[in-house]
């Protein structure tokens, strides 16, 4: 019996096309980055990631791009699309409303090649703010049950727990644009995520860590981080609430 198979690759008659401009750059070999242009067909649901992979499959195998889940949960595919940091798999070509789609590697991250960037600094900053529950009894001893936590208490931090570490916020933040030592909105929002968790007792030690000359004070509430976050994390809110503790507005 015929069982219809692949769907995403089929082009129906409604297919339109755009010019996809991909920034190409291999720091080991090239002086500077250059754009390569490709003509790609798209449907109303085609994402920028699919378009890039289409190019990789059929026109130029060497395009370097990071991707995995294709459903906006793994945080791999952050890049600058038409001037703004976005997830390639969560941006449909049809919603960009433009005949030319330009993709570049994220700003404020060193380029490995083409669209792929190094994340070491983001991971290090994340680790630095102690992103885990701090209390004596985190290791379960046989028969213990859960720590109780009401749905209202969950609501205090769940928003910030949605962070997929895509780095878009760090790419948009104006402080990150010039300050290599800034911890960045991603890590600061995670510091708040754990501070706001009713099970956590590590507030003081975390506040100490981010109270640094390149810590939380380098955020000026520009809000760009929240505007580009694809998961509704709203790092700007978390950071200001966290700073509220440090200024003594909250306890």
């Amino acid at each position, binding site marked *: 019996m015929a069982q219809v198979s692949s769907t995403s690759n089929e082009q129906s008659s409604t297919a339109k096309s755009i010019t996809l401009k991909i920034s190409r750059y291999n*720091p080991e070999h090239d002086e500077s980055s250059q754009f390569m242009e490709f003509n790609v067909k798209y449907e109303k649901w085609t994402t920028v990631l699919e378009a890039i992979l289409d190019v990789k499959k059929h026109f130029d195998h060497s395009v370097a791009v990071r991707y995995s889940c294709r459903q906006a949960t793994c945080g791999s595919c952050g890049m600058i699309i038409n*001037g*703004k940091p976005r997830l390639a798999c969560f941006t449909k070509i049809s919603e960009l409303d433009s005949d030319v789609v330009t993709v570049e*590697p994220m*700003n*404020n*991250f*060193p*380029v490995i090649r083409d669209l792929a*960037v190094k994340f070491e600094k983001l991971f290090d900053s994340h680790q630095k703010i102690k992103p885990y529950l701090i209390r004596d009894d985190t290791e379960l001893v046989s028969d213990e049950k859960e720590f109780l936590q009401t749905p209202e208490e969950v*609501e*205090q*931090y*769940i*928003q*910030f727990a*949605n962070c997929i570490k895509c780095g878009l916020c760090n*790419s*948009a933040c*104006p*402080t*990150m*644009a*010039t300050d*290599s030592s800034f911890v960045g909105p991603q890590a600061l929002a995670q510091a708040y995520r754990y501070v*706001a968790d009713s099970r956590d007792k590590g507030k003081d030690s975390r506040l100490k860590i981010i109270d640094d000359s390149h810590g939380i004070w380098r955020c*000026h*509430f*520009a*809000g*760009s981080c*929240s*505007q*580009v*976050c*694809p*998961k*509704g*994390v*709203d790092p*700007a*809110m*978390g950071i*200001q*609430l*966290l*700073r*509220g503790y440090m*200024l003594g*507005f*909250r306890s």
Partner: protein
Amino acid sequence: MPQDEHKEGIGGMMNPTRYGIERVAYLLMRLSGLGLLAYFVAHIYETSNILRGQVGWNEFLELTQTTEGHLFLAIVIAMCVFHTVNGIRVMLGHGGVGVGKPARPDYPYDPASQNYRHKIGIYSSIVLAAVAAMYGLAVMFGE
């Protein structure tokens, strides 16, 4: 060669066109802060002329009592008002006031911290700054 961090640089930091009014406020806050600092230093120097006696003071005063001087002063007034009013907004924000409450985000995401309260704050600082500057001009040129 140190690794190129691919930072956006000052241009990216200053670019006010991409992320809405909050980013404009950020830029104006910086510029007005620096402008005021420059004015402040100049102002201290200006007033020190009083030590040179009435003649010295008046000499110096004449230098500033020109059309350009008045325009400059109007800008200083604007910067001062903007920086002060927006500064109060920023301080409240930094303390966690008016930045919204944490809540489960629902798609399409609309960050609560980028809310109308702060937008109104920004717009009113701009408007107040403009009004103050105009008032200043009216007083200065109204002589």
